[in-house]
């Protein structure tokens, strides 16, 4: 036991004496969250939108006045044709176009139902969703006001057209994504690199020729990164609650338990990589290609999995981060309990057991 | 008057407070085999880097192949060859590919390259190995090939950093035969080694201790000076007083 503790202490010396890596370990998650955070809070204000009013009647004018009153929009009222709108989107000049069809008020009064077209640049999904929500709520308010004065149920239906990213992945989805990414990065890359480093420096030979059990070498390598990752999870959660105003709707305890599970999955992957590589560079490259990229592509937080071709969807099932992402979203955003995520948890447990088994099998008590 | 190809005067390199090379002054002549000896950390590598134009001296004067080490490092690099025990050739390229590559970076024309590589392969007896990866060759052959490649562009000076470390005694001697051959063709050899018997093969030897040159002469004169029977004793006599390590 004492050997084990000394080993872990040594690992912490390694971590804390390597300033650059240390900075990356703790700076990266913070930087990512803060960056996403600013993307969320800043860009929503003062968005340039264009209003195309073919109607020019009372109702359209009243709604336009309400939009103008909002601090979120800079309005360009110059009348444009549909083609011009497309061009303005392509140039990135505007984020949204609100189109009132001719006879807007008439339809509303006579058919009790009218339509507004909202065309949104959804390439930045965060902004896209927020803008439509704002406009929709302005229209809703107007509708309620109309109803107050009149018994006829007028309905204005905003017809939504999302450009570029109709799936609208975004906003709160980034936090779980960043959590998965950071853990994959730290655990897979750091464990594999630190084990391979011992091989490269020849210290592994000495450790093997010692009474210390080789398996313990591996476990004591993993412990510091497990702890560091948990600290990182806490930092990310604190930042997302206090900086991004993204509350944790479900159980924090459950969230940490599931995170620990992913960390162990990642550690066993790192271990597997370290048994297969001989140089730090190779380990780093394999971690990057093997873990980072799949995590970014297939976990679902950057690119919607539903839109991928079927074979890619199948591949995405092999990526642990995908399941973790679903779990975290369920707990944090939907506030669901364990009963809702037991399947995903089981899949992660299965993956971990599988990975640990092969890497322990592959781990050599001898050289080559 | 002998033509000098390396000339330094009070050449110094400081790293902060630490004086790695302390006012060394010496001359190396054309066609000479010059042994550059010293204990670990005496400053040999730093001095050699300055002469190769890889590191800017803190003070002093030095010319290599007639070029100034402060301003004309590009010219220096074109006129020297370099080989070390650690880095010599690309292990994952074949013998011929290595020769072509290194000849190529030194600007040999295709015709020259063809002539040189076949000549080189012939003298080293590597006819059957040209398509083999360098990594698969025995160490001794690798080192001999590396040396031949280092002088493929007929440099004025070739710097050899422990070229024979770990090589078997027979190949080590063959390696020195190559060195002499190169020296006879007018190439100046600047060599470091930990084998003291190899110090005897040099025309002149300098002994560096704690950043300065403590002795410089032919092996026989050095032995006389320190009334020693071998270079080993001379080295021991000088380096024993060394205070610092790497």
């Amino acid at each position: 036991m004492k050997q084990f503790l000394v080993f872990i202490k040594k690992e912490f010396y390694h971590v804390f004496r390597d300033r650059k890596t240390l900075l990356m370990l703790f700076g990266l998650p913070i930087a990512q969250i803060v960056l996403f955070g600013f993307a969320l809070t800043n860009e929503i204000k003062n968005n340039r939108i264009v209003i195309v009013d073919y109607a020019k009647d009372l109702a359209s004018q009243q709604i336009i006045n309400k939009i103008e009153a909002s601090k979120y929009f800079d309005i360009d009222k110059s009348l444009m044709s549909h083609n011009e709108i497309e061009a303005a989107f392509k140039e990135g000049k505007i984020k949204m176009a609100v189109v009132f069809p001719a006879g807007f008020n008439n339809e509303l009064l006579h058919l009790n139902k009218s339509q507004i077209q909202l065309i949104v640049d959804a390439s930045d999904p965060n902004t896209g969703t927020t803008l439509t929500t704002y406009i929709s709520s302005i229209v809703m308010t107007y509708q309620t006001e109309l109803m107050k004065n009149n018994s006829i149920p007028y309905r204005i239906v905003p017809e939504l057209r999302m450009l570029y990213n109709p799936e609208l992945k975004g906003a709160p989805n980034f936090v779980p994504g960043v959590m998965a990414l950071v853990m994959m990065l730290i655990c897979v890359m750091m464990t594999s690199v630190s084990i391979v480093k011992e091989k490269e420096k020849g210290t592994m030979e000495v450790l093997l020729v010692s009474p210390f059990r080789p398996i313990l070498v591996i476990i004591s390598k993993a412990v510091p990164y497990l702890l560091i990752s948990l600290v990182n999870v806490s930092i990310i959660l604190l930042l997302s609650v206090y900086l991004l105003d993204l509350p944790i709707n479900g159980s924090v305890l459950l969230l940490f338990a599931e995170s620990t599970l992913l960390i162990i999955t990642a550690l066993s992957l790192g271990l597997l990589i370290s048994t297969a590589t001989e140089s730090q560079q190779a380990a780093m490259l394999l971690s990057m290609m093997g873990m980072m990229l799949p995590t970014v592509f297939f976990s679902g937080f950057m690119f919607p999995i539903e839109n991928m071709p079927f074979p890619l969807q199948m591949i995405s099932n092999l990526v642990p981060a995908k399941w973790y992402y679903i779990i975290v979203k369920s707990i944090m955003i939907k506030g669901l309990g364990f009963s809702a995520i037991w399947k995903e948890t089981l899949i992660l447990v299965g993956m971990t057991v599988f990975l640990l088994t092969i890497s322990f099998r592959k781990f050599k008590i001898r050289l080559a | 008057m002998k033509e000098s190809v390396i000339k330094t005067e009070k050449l110094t390199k400081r790293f902060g407070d630490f004086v790695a090379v302390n006012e060394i002054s010496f001359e190396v002549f054309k066609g000479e085999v010059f042994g550059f000896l010293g204990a670990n950390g005496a400053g040999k590598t730093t001095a050699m880097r300055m002469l190769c134009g890889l590191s800017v001296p803190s003070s002093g004067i030095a010319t290599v192949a007639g070029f100034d080490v402060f301003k004309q490092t590009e010219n220096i690099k074109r006129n020297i060859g370099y080989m070390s025990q650690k880095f010599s050739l690309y292990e994952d390229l074949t013998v011929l590919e290595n020769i072509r590559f290194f000849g190529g970076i030194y600007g040999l024309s295709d015709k020259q390259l063809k002539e040189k590589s076949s000549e080189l392969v012939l003298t080293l007896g590597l006819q059957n190995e040209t398509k083999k990866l360098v990594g698969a060759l025995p160490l001794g052959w690798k080192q001999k090939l590396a040396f031949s490649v280092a002088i493929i562009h007929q440099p004025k000076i070739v710097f050899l950093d422990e070229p024979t470390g770990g090589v078997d005694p027979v190949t080590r001697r063959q390696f020195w035969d190559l060195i002499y051959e190169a020296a006879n063709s007018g190439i100046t050899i600047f060599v470091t080694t930990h084998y003291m018997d190899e110090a005897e093969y040099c025309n002149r030897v300098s002994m560096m201790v704690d950043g300065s040159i403590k002795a410089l002469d032919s092996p026989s004169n050095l032995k006389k000076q320190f009334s020693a029977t071998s270079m080993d004793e001379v080295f021991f006599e000088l380096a024993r007083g060394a205070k610092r390590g790497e």
Partner: protein
Amino acid sequence: MVILNNITKTYNKGNTIAVDDVSFSVGKGELFGLIGPDGAGKTSIFRVLTTLLLPDGGSATVDGCDVVIDYKKIRSQVGYMPGKFSLYQDLTVEENLNFFATIFNTTIKENYELIKEIYVQIEPFKNRRAEKLSGGMKQKLALCCALIHKPTVLFLDEPTTGVDAVSRKEFWEMLKRLKEQGITILVSTPYMDEATLCDRIALIQTGKIMSIDTPNNIVKAYSGTLYKIKSDMMNKLSNDLHSYENMLSCYAFGEYLHLSFKNENEHFEKELMNILKEKGHQQIEFERTIPTIEDCFIKLMSSSG
């Protein structure tokens, strides 16, 4: 203490033979040297003995334990310093030593006596990180780390490679004193001049042991007579000698050339001198010399092809 029986080790699925049918034994308290160039198979032999590699053929025991079956026992008893071993660069001297002591289930205090003599030399720098130590000091620290659990057998793989002549001498002094304390030491080196410092040596080349005995006996077993020669024109001398048909071998050795002859009748010396004088050599020194281990190695190499 250490016994090898027909040990063979191959790499690349048997295509590269690193160790070829090697057998020898090392007695208790012996300082045994494996002498040979890089790639001779020294490191592979050490790794088989330290249970890091499984041999492809043959058997070996260390202190009575089989290297394959009783590997756990061997690992807790031997000390090992691999060739490229460089300690933990980012840990201090004391942290390194402490770490290895604990890993080997002991403390610095417990076996301090054994390492004291070496450790006092680096103790003033105990709070310095290993990366900031000089080559000689690193080597001492590495030796302390390998000794800290009082091993019965100490394996040192090329401890002096790339180290200057003075530090090398100091290192061998240390080994001698360790030997006096009863530790069996196996050491490998490419430097032939270190061979005489061992009790017994094995000369090894391309995986085969060419000769194994005490350094003295190996020198005695040198067949034929060895001469050394020197003249005022050393560069030319070697070429001129090679044209003498009675020449068996001739190679540079320090400031001299070492020679041996096919036929040493009463005239050959005179014959040789005449040839050399004809070629313009002066101040010729020519005399018999005692072969060194390196001469023996060269001779063994050429006779084994």
